[in-house]
């Protein structure tokens, strides 16, 4: 083999390598988005489509109040273009130190890559007047469990779509189109959900934590009590008894709750119906 042909072989190999690399270079242009919870990740994925990489810090089956600020999350945050959080102090126990230590100026509080999704949503249970911890772990800015109302889901998705359009102006039309599509699918799904939930309108429910005000509001459920005596304070044995008594008086209230051994016990003893809304979803499944 002559020297020349060896060189041309090398040139071809290099050319092929470049061709192989160029799609990855295009892919690197994708916005890298980290969200605090999987709910936000799902909504971001809906509007972001294949132009974004979305990853959530908390897992869907994890209590978003008590995520640990693991250093491995810093590896994700340091390269993020956008951080989407639930806000209203839901993540106050773990997100602020992660943001500070990330060494990433783009996602610092107030920077363009810092997005508090609560600004788009209807917020309930904003405490009026004096707020004290005697009320338990209250969120002074309002109840952070707002995403379970489909209307809020739509509003959050629209807010995120606008943000993405702002950050990546070239794909603005794409994100708006994705939002429009999501909006239509959500509206169709809502008709189905409304029909499914109609029989339960006005049904009295007891929830474990104050997690469902927006959901209950949307579907006309009547939340009469909580298993937790105060937000964030676990119920004692007497409290479980109290709730049980309340239930038997009501004659089998729908006992909606997060996953907890306390409720299972309550459920067994009262014969009321337990519905769990937490941690049953398939990972990576489509939202609608």
């Amino acid at each position, binding site marked *: 083999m002559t020297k020349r042909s060896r060189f041309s072989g090398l040139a071809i190999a290099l050319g092929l390598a470049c061709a192989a690399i160029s799609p990855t270079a295009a892919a690197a242009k994708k916005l890298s988005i980290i969200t605090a919870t999987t709910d936000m990740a799902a909504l971001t994925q809906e509007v972001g489509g294949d132009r974004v990489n979305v990853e959530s810090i908390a897992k869907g*089956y994890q209590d978003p109040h008590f995520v640990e600020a*693991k*250093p*491995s999350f810093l590896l994700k945050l340091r390269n993020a273009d956008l951080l989407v959080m639930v806000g209203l102090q839901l993540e106050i126990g773990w997100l602020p130190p992660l943001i500070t230590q990330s060494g990433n*100026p783009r996602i610092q509080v*107030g920077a*363009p890559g810092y997005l508090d999704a609560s600004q788009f*949503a209807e*917020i309930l249970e904003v405490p009026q007047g004096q707020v004290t911890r005697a009320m338990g772990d209250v969120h002074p800015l309002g109840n952070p469990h707002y995403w379970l109302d489909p209307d809020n889901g739509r509003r959050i998705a629209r807010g995120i779509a606008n943000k993405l359009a702002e950050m990546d102006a070239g794909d603005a039309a794409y994100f708006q189109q994705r939002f429009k599509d999501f909006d239509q699918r959500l509206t169709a799904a809502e008709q189905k959900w409304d029909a499914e939930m109609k029989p339960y309108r006005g049904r009295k429910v007891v929830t474990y934590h104050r997690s469902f005000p927006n959901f209950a509001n949307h579907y006309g459920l009547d939340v009469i009590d909580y298993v937790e005596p105060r937000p964030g304070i*676990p119920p004692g044995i007497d409290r479980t008894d109290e709730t049980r008594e309340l239930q038997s008086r009501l004659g089998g209230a729908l006992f909606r709750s997060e996953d907890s051994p306390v409720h299972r016990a309550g459920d067994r003893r009262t014969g009321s119906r337990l519905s769990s809304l937490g941690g049953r979803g398939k990972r990576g499944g489509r939202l609608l």
Partner: protein
Amino acid sequence: MKYSRWLPIFLLFFAVPVFSQRGDAPQAASGQPDTAALLQKIRDLEDRVIALEGQVRQLKTEPPPAQPTTSAPASAFTAQAGTPGVLGGAGGSAAKALNPDISVIGDFISVAGHNSLQPSPSLEMHESEVGLQAIIDPYARGDFFLSFGEEGVNLEEGYITLTALPAGFVAKVGKMRSAFGKVNTLHNHVLPWVDRPLVTNNLVGGEDGLDDAGVSIQRILPAPKGIFLEATGQLFRGDSGDKDHPLFRASTTSDVSAVAHLRGYKDITESTNLDLGLSYARGHNNLGTDFLTQLYGVDATLRWKPLRRSIYHSFVGRGELIWSQRQQLPSEQRAFGFYTSGDYQLGRRWFVGGRYDRAGRSEFANLTDQGASAVLTYWPSEFSQIRGQYRFTRYAGNVDANEFLMQLLFSLGAHGAHPF
């Protein structure tokens, strides 16, 4: 008259349904689209009100936007924060919104038992720590921790963290607990025990530890996927340790001390992770400029916390090994100490733990103290904690101490971050 008075009312009653029927008639034809349009309009209005409410909330909680300056880096922020800028005379509550987050943590300790060598007061308001924390501007945040003890006030930490440095660097300037090992970085109220281990007292400057004024710079280093590697370098004035346990002393301005720390972390599974650290510290000791003290440390922490049941069960096992090399007359002293401890969370509010520690003394390396503790902790809520600790200590020369420590921690004000 009676009739004439009632007549208009009767007429009105009859008239209303008639008129309303007439009004309905033309609508019936095109009623469907009209109501749909109206509903849509109401929904749009509702959305706008909610969007406005959201903006008001943002204004109330977020720090002030960057001042519109001509400098290039600020322009990105001002462009986004255009609307908040117009909030001119919002007055009282808006001004308060810019106050730092204030927290106070009370640490009350009572001790029963006998300790002839290092007696503790029977009842003591050990520390009241005031924390003031806020974002300073788009480029930095500030943290102050003032520790009010029984004898006076001490600035435990007070530093600015520069969060917007290029190339992923994070810098701190001020007084801070240095990054030597694990326990040294922790404030009293986040320790898994009432006290600090013997090795801290004997080799790392006691309760105050390596806590000094200086600068710190840290950066995440490139590492194989899934491994977190971070290096920290710190330069301090050279004064550390409390008065009973002096560590570094700066006799001249050039007697600075330095600390280096390398941290490696890996998630083994989603619930288990391993955290390893290597530390080095060097400074001049209380004998003068010509006498150096060097510390070498290795720390390891294994954590287990199943995510689904993370608020009910967890385990943390930790240990630290520390070697001290102190130049003094007549000869250099090389002392070694370590502790190892484990904490298991039994339920949402209960934790049980134990610790074994053993440490030589920095000035007399052949004198070794050892001890063991059993700890039980109860959390009434996230904002208070009751802890009992039984502590056995065998000091060098076979002096034994059996003590029972009770601690009550309570936290006021802003919700701080949970330590990791």
